[in-house]
């Protein structure tokens, strides 16, 4: 246990660059979880898993129900915690965090039985009398590392998948949203089984060490830099990972589009959550003919949304911490021209919803990873140029395209690659349980939500159940090897291209 000496941080906090333990009152123990305690929790979780507790459907349903009740019964606490961490308006907390988690839990509860059932597969001649199926089994004990951008949802939605799949879980909510992390740390033990599910509060610098304790799967959401470190640590112990990483999501705006609806949808997608959502459009590629109209429409939308002084608006958030604030402020001062917004307030970590124009490809805002309420608007002369621009850069989490011309939409969709795609709106595809959400290339690997969460935390075990009574055609495979037997088997297993199925004899 870490003992707090006067004016000295515990070892774990020191490793994460703090002089004092941040969240303690005088005399209290530091809440930070060091790697030693993580190891202890992992041991308990493994023992719980081996006991078979998470195997049956009833147990999993009860835990899923508990997650739902947790979110429902403590709505006010979550709203409060997120307000302190991100100045998140109640509306956003409820809609983009709590309701999402509830819906995912319900979706899992409604479908769990179906997901847990073994899937029978197509058989062939020699397995016609056998049972051939794919059984979904839990992986064991998994680690979920949440991101601060959506601190509740990015912990609890993967947790739902892990629970549904029958795993034991160690969850590490992001330390950057300290109040939310503490809330989860305090509440989860009152709702979920204490042996199977553990919340740890480890520092970012301790993540690699934690991963190397050896889990059966690691789910990480966050920045590319941290994701790479986690991935390397997991590689050292042959642990599979799912990574949902940030990237620069492009948003193409065509000359043919409903400009007002476009502007509203883009403005909402970019500036909700204080501009700190991984699925938001990061920059706009606007057809040259449309630029002025788009900027004007965006200005109007922002005025309607947040008023003339967004700092006074109750619907507008703040940046998560001083570090993020400095980064965002520097970027906006060093890139392009501010055409709207640009006001900052350091004490409040406030950055106004900002539109940038005259941004070049090489400006820092187009290169550095950041989360903040800045929207650079670049111009392109054609769809071709937009596609080339997007494809020159790393594959993003999302690609967006606004156009009334379905051919343009098709081209953007077919000629680019990204985790997901949405036309004429943004972010929504990341909120639907029936669609997988994840990255590709530099924006990550694997995806989650709904059934996909269940699948990433499951092992698909192939099972062939044979009897010994009937040797059937299988004797043809035994030595002494005989050309005639071989011809028979080759003939039986050779396919004509017209035939629907295929046939193989062993």
């Amino acid at each position, binding site marked *: 246990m870490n003992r707090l000496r006067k004016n000295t941080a515990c070892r774990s906090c020191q490793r994460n660059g703090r002089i004092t333990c941040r969240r303690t009152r005088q005399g209290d123990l530091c809440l930070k979880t060091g790697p030693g305690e993580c190891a202890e929790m992992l041991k308990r979780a493994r023992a719980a898993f081996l006991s078979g507790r998470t195997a049956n459907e009833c147990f999993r349903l009860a835990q899923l129900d508990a997650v739902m009740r947790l979110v429902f019964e403590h709505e006010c606490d979550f709203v409060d915690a997120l307000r302190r961490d991100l100045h998140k308006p109640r509306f956003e907390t409820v809609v983009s965090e709590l309701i999402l988690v509830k819906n995912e839990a319900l979706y899992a509860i409604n479908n769990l039985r179906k997901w847990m059932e073994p899937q029978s597969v197509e058989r062939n001649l020699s397995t016609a009398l056998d049972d051939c199926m794919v059984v979904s089994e839990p992986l064991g004990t998994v680690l979920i590392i949440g991101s601060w951008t959506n601190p509740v949802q990015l912990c609890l939605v993967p947790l739902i998948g892990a629970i549904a799949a029958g795993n034991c879980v160690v969850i590490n909510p992001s330390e950057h949203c300290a109040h939310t992390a503490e809330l989860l740390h305090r509440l989860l033990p009152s709702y979920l089984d204490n042996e199977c599910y553990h919340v740890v509060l480890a520092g970012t610098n301790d993540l690699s060490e934690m991963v190397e304790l050896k889990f059966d799967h690691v789910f990480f959401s966050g920045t590319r830099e941290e994701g790479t470190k986690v991935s390397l640590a997991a590689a050292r112990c042959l642990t599979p990972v799912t990574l949902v990483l940030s990237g620069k999501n492009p948003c193409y705006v065509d000359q043919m589009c409903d400009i007002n609806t476009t502007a509203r949808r883009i403005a909402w997608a970019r500036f909700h959550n204080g501009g700190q959502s991984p699925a938001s459009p990061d920059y706009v590629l606007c057809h040259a003919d449309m630029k002025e109209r788009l900027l004007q429409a965006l200005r109007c939308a922002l005025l309607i949304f947040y008023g003339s002084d967004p700092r006074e608006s109750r619907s507008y958030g703040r940046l998560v911490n001083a570090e993020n604030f400095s980064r965002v402020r520097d970027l906006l001062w060093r890139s392009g021209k501010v055409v709207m917004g640009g006001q900052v307030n350091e004490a409040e970590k406030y950055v106004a919803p900002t539109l940038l124009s005259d941004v070049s490809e090489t400006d820092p805002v187009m290169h550095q990873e950041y989360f903040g309420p800045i929207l650079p608007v670049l111009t392109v002369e054609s769809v071709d140029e937009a596609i080339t621009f997007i494809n020159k850069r790393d594959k993003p989490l999302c690609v967006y395209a606004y156009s009334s011309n379905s051919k343009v939409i098709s081209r953007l969709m077919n000629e680019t690659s990204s*985790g997901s795609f949405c036309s004429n709106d943004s972010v929504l*595809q990341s909120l639907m349980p029936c669609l997988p*959400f994840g990255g590709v290339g530099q924006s990550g690997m694997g995806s989650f939500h709904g059934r996909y969460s269940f699948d990433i935390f499951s092992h698909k075990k*192939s099972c062939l159940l044979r009897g010994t009574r009937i040797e059937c055609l299988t004797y043809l495979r035994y030595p002494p090897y005989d050309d005639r037997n071989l011809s028979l088997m080759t003939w039986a297993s050779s396919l004509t291209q017209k035939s629907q199925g*295929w046939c193989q004899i062993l």
Partner: protein
Amino acid sequence: MESHSEVIARLRATFCTKVTIPLQFRLTQLKALLALMEENEAQIVEALHKDLAKPKFEAVLSEIDMVRNDVCHAMNNLKTWMEPEYVATNLATKFDDCTIRREPFGVVLIIGAWNYPLQLILLPLIGAIAAGNCAVLKPSEISQATEKLLAELIPKYLSQECYVVVCGGAEDTKKLLENQFDHIFYTGSQSVARSILQAAAVHLTPVTLELGGKTPCFMYGRLDMKTTAKRLVWAKYFNLGQSCVAPDYVLCTAETRDALLPAIREALEAFYGTDLQRCPDLGRIVTDKHWSHLMDMLGKSKGKVVIGGESTREEKYIAPTVVVDVDGTDALMQEEIFGPILPILTMESLQEAIDFVNTKEKALALYAFSDDPKIVTTVLENTCSGGFCANDGIVHMTLPSLPFGGIGASGMGCYHGRWSYETFSHKRASVLRSWALERVGAFRYPPYSDSNLSWLRWATTTKKSSCSIM
């Protein structure tokens, strides 16, 4: 001679032209692969014989036929696989198209292994082609004849702009891995897998690993000893025990062991005759080094050799061997055997055997022989492995509709049939929204109001019938 980075750059440039995307192109390449197999059967058999003394029967059955069947399966089903998957829409997305599209990753790397040198590189290639990727193939340098043949035939049949064979040893593979790929598929050992995974992690490249492990073989309850022994012997000594899913060791009671041994002897004689070394149906160990390693393990074992044990260094031959009185600390139980040596461990109860297996790393496969279905179910439900087969061995990996892959130390990801296609595809969610229903969508906009929130809350909460807006 192109350098690795030049090859990869060339393949990437080809991929960017989108030539691999249309169904017709993919089918043409698959058809060409089929022609490669059919027109070169004799050469393939000869190369496999040079590398592993593989009998023609085994070469055709476990290499040529498997690849042929998988190609035909892919050709027959590719159109369906490529169709976008529509998902259920809800109130707010009623006028929208919500689909999941399968898209290729780009340029993938497939590293093969020496024990089934053709199948282990071509089966993943089928998935890579079907999914629309370009591919770099790195066959194992240990099975040299097959490596040479692949290097000669692949450019002859498949598009040289899209698929390239790279030859070389461990150092070359290491250099190759410094480049960025969009997916890496590796079959081989755990130690190499770790370095591959680390090289991939730097580039954030997803990896499929097909590794091995010690495949346990449970034999409990009532047993049809004759059939059990035949199937065990077939699975164990096929390819002279050099299969990643060969039964590695047997767990049974002393009574079962005593009944099993004569049945094994009988099966061996029926299959390979009395002069096993001269039997053309038995393979050989791939290299001197592997042969020495196996003999070393056998030498250090504290068990008793009751069947076989003969060996000849010059021929890299080891007779089908069975060793009894082996316990968990024996030299034969420390790593995957990968040879024709079968230890039998006696454990009087099924539970003891299950507990023993559960202390070890998860294997690629697990077998249970029993005429009692309850025993089979108990083993299936209380153990974990890549795949499972009751009352037989290896055959579960020959059905393309079953995923073939490991878990934990035996690997990650899977392939065969449609699973190969999925492994080499990215599932991209796509929502095509219309401008309609903006009044509904507008409830989400600021300035936030309690009434809008109530409305959204009502409309977006999933109910029992799974109806939701968001």
